[in-house]
């Protein structure tokens, strides 16, 4: 399968990429690792007329300790997130989740920023960064702004990014030793999650987010509220799907997904509470 025709522009800086996209308007798309976009283009579900390749902006590939949080450049590949000693130490949940994305070949190409900007609720990293209370830094023609992960996901493959804005950095608060768990239920190793759960608990708080339980990644706020008011893990997990609105598809019915979410949230919280 071959994508439909497009023009290809290679950006040599973030500023140039943004001005190129602004110049070509709605029909232009950023190309990072291409592992979300190219499959859609091959199926002709996406047909941008211009691709602005940002894959060579090596200065947007980094993982640095910024004190209370870890700053991750948007073009950092999944493999680098997975194996980062800084993340393994300070945000092990994210390193673990990145290791569940696709397979090694995919993780050699796909980037954390690409995955988040694509805003697919079935992807592992949007939900994981949501659970962790991340902030996304985006750059546009008129400057830089920060968007909380909780305000970012607007609908199916829709985010708060404006067409001429580029995600440049992901800021993830340090977990400070909190317990955590990443649960992914799928049929074959490399598949998308039928349902996934990213959860942490400790230092007087908790965060639980769900993969593939609606048109956006879902923050299971009722679970966190119940835990905060002293509910048991089992009781809190019963509320797993309170914020969710899952779809039925070939893999699972909506009812099954709701059931699975409760089971996986319970398992995740048990692991995170150890």
């Amino acid at each position: 399968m071959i994508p439909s025709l497009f023009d290809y522009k290679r950006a040599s800086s973030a500023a140039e990429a943004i001005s190129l996209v602004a110049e070509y308007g709605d029909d232009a798309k950023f190309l990072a690792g291409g592992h979300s976009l190219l499959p859609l283009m091959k199926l002709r579900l996406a047909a941008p007329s211009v691709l602005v390749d940002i894959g060579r902006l090596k200065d947007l590939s980094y993982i640095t300790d910024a004190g209370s949080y870890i700053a991750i450049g948007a073009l950092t590949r999944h493999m680098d997130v997975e194996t980062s000693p800084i993340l393994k130490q300070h945000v092990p949940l994210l390193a673990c989740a990145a290791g569940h994305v696709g397979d090694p070949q995919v993780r050699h190409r796909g980037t954390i920023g690409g995955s988040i900007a694509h805003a697919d609720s079935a992807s592992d990293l949007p939900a994981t960064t949501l659970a962790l209370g991340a902030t996304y830094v985006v750059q546009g023609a008129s400057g830089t702004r920060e968007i909380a992960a909780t305000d970012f996901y607007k609908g199916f493959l829709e985010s708060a990014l404006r067409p001429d804005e580029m995600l440049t950095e992901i800021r993830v608060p340090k977990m400070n030793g909190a317990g955590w768990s990443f649960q992914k239920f799928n049929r074959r190793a490399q598949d998308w999650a039928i349902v996934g759960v990213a959860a942490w608990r400790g230092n007087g708080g908790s965060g639980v987010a769900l993969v593939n339980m609606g048109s956006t990644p879902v923050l299971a706020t009722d679970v966190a509220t119940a835990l905060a008011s002293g509910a048991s893990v089992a009781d809190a997990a019963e509320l797993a799907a309170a914020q969710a609105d899952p779809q039925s598809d070939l893999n699972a019915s909506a009812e099954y997904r709701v059931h699975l979410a409760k089971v996986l949230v319970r398992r995740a919280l048990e692991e995170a509470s150890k």
Partner: protein
Amino acid sequence: MKISVTVNGKTHESDVEPRTLLVQYVREDLGLTGTNIGCDTSSCGACSLHLDGEAVKSCTVLAVQADGSQVTTIEGLATDGKMHPMQDAFMQNHGLQCGFCTPGMVMAAISLLRENANPTEEEVRIGLEGNLCRCTGYHNIVQSILACAKGGK
């Protein structure tokens, strides 16, 4: 668009449509048909080759993204008519049956050992999650890779 890609040690200056996939480029433009196309949807791993030393699925990379890069395909592994140790290990351990998945398996396996020179059996199995085989049941593929790792090659 003009690109320059070094494939199996030889630099090719080519003019490609931006939508040309890397797998199409190596198979059709360069005639290197050892790299197979299976699913064409980044699932099966048959199209795995090395881009700057790491296994990638070439059905999901544009040729223009490989501009300036080093590509190695299955054809580039043997030296002076002598198979790469991983190819040899697959042969010795009956790591293939029909052979369709094999080029991708070998490329993924070499990439795996570069990242983890002494994997456990479980690590090999997990490391092959991106490669499907319809014939072998994986057992002998895993044995081949472990044998190659043990050979220290």
